[in-house]
């Protein structure tokens, strides 16, 4: 399969001077479910946020479908973001909006400012939102306010919001950290099913190594802003983990 995303020599330095990413290279192929693992502070979250430029990198290239995202102007970048869905650790729903309105915000990139002011989404969008909510199992919660849902249900809303963008890739930032272990597995399972069903590759940050090994097809290990591992889950053994997590057992 061809590469949809290619990251070359990506560097990020925060204003305090500490270099968070020190030249990262990797590719995401169009059938990948790629996990990024690594200890806290290793730069996982920064890396994933660089892809849609929620964090601005200092140097490097991010080729998405062959186009360098770092060279795009503001409106071109907004258009590019429509193709990249994102699922967040804390769900980042608009608490006071209904479930379906939350899903529909995923269409804002395709909706004009005036239409969005009156939440005048197209009929197709509304139909699609209902279909996706049914797909993630929330059809009967459609009209509830987002803050009335449980954590697992909120994450499903987040998944539907990303899918309604009609994305070509999904960025997933610690999808399970705010959930209990059982719900976490359900959510990971749902993301994997949906990725296959919609044919979208996934780039997923995850600190839980067991979940990464179980659900992902490829793993990148990050430590202190440097890539330490890139390969199949089967290749990961104690020695690799010790290297990534710099555990003092060895």
């Amino acid at each position: 399969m061809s590469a949809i995303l290619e990251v070359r020599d990506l560097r990020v330095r925060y204003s305090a001077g500490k270099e968070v990413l020190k030249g990262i290279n990797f590719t995401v192929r169009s059938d990948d479910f790629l996990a990024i693992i690594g200890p806290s502070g290793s730069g996982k979250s920064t890396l994933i946020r660089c892809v849609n430029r929620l964090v601005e990198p200092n140097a490097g290239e991010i080729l998405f479908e062959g186009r360098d995202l770092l060279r795009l102007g503001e409106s071109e970048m907004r258009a590019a973001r429509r193709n990249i869905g994102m699922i967040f650790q804390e769900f980042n729903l608009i608490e006071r909006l209904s479930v379906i309105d939350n899903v529909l915000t995923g269409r804002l990139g395709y909706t004009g400012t005036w239409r969005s002011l009156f939440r005048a989404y197209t009929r197709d969008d509304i139909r699609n939102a209902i279909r996706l909510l049914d797909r993630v199992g929330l059809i009967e919660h459609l009209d509830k306010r987002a803050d009335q849902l449980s954590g697992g249900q909120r994450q499903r809303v987040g998944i539907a919001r990303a899918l309604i963008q009609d994305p070509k890739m999904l960025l997933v930032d610690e999808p399970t950290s705010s959930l209990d272990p059982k719900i976490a597995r359900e959510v990971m399972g749902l993301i994997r099913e949906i990725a296959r069903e919609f044919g979208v590759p996934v780039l997923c940050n995850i600190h839980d190594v067991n979940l990464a090994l179980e659900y992902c097809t490829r793993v990148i290990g990050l430590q202190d802003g440097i890539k330490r591992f890139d390969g199949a889950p089967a290749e990961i053994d104690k020695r690799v983990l010790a290297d990534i997590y710099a555990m003092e057992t060895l």
Partner: protein
Amino acid sequence: MRAGAADLTAYDLHADQISAWRNRSRRMRYGTYFMVAALIAWSVEAIVIGDTDWDRISWASMFKSARQFMDVDFSILGSLLTPAIETALMATLGTLLGLVLAVPVAWLGAANISPLGKFSYAFGRALMTMSRSVHELVWALIFVAAVGLGALAGVLAMGIRSIGFISKTVAEAIEDVNPGPVEAMRAVGANRFQVLLFGILPQVIPVFIGNVIFEWDVNIRRSTIMGLVGAGGLGLALHRQMSAYNYGGVATVLLVILLLIIAGEIASYLARRAVI
């Protein structure tokens, strides 16, 4: 028994330092108390004792004046209905005007979304301060001069006076929003206005509505005195009764004002309960 010389030095030196510092701060404190007391005594002497015509005041005269207000003049009650309604409407329109004007000011004065960075932030904050630092009666005087006598001047005065409080509280709420939804809206490719509309507005709307209701409540009070400077409403009736030395009539107007404020209090309680 005395401790050895070595033990003495470090601890005792430290203890001496602390107690010396405490003595100093105690002296400072009592000095401050004394100065504040002296300042209060001087103020009372200068502006109350020296400046009051004590010969005019006696128990008899005080009782007599108070007695005049007791003869509530119900004959003017009918003529107060229109000014009372005008007062309530003036407060409502003034609040609506303030609400509309406060939105752009809050946008300018919220550090995280201000369109031109520090420059527009400082401008927004300056507008807020200007609105609040001028008394509503002074705003009313300015607008009476500008648009003439009548309720319009009162509406404009309260509108301008309301901007400060509403926009300041809303701007601070905007600065405190949870950044998660903002990030999510940016990630779906929303433009700046859409990020404001969906990422920020839903989070600040409860603060906004709550403060608008509060400001409306305050504006009802304000609008009852707007008439004193010619800006319409019950204040004008109050002024007329005072000029005519009709103390019974003054009492009637004050009673109507009281009723209006109680009504406003109830209405704002109900509104708050319905909305929030």
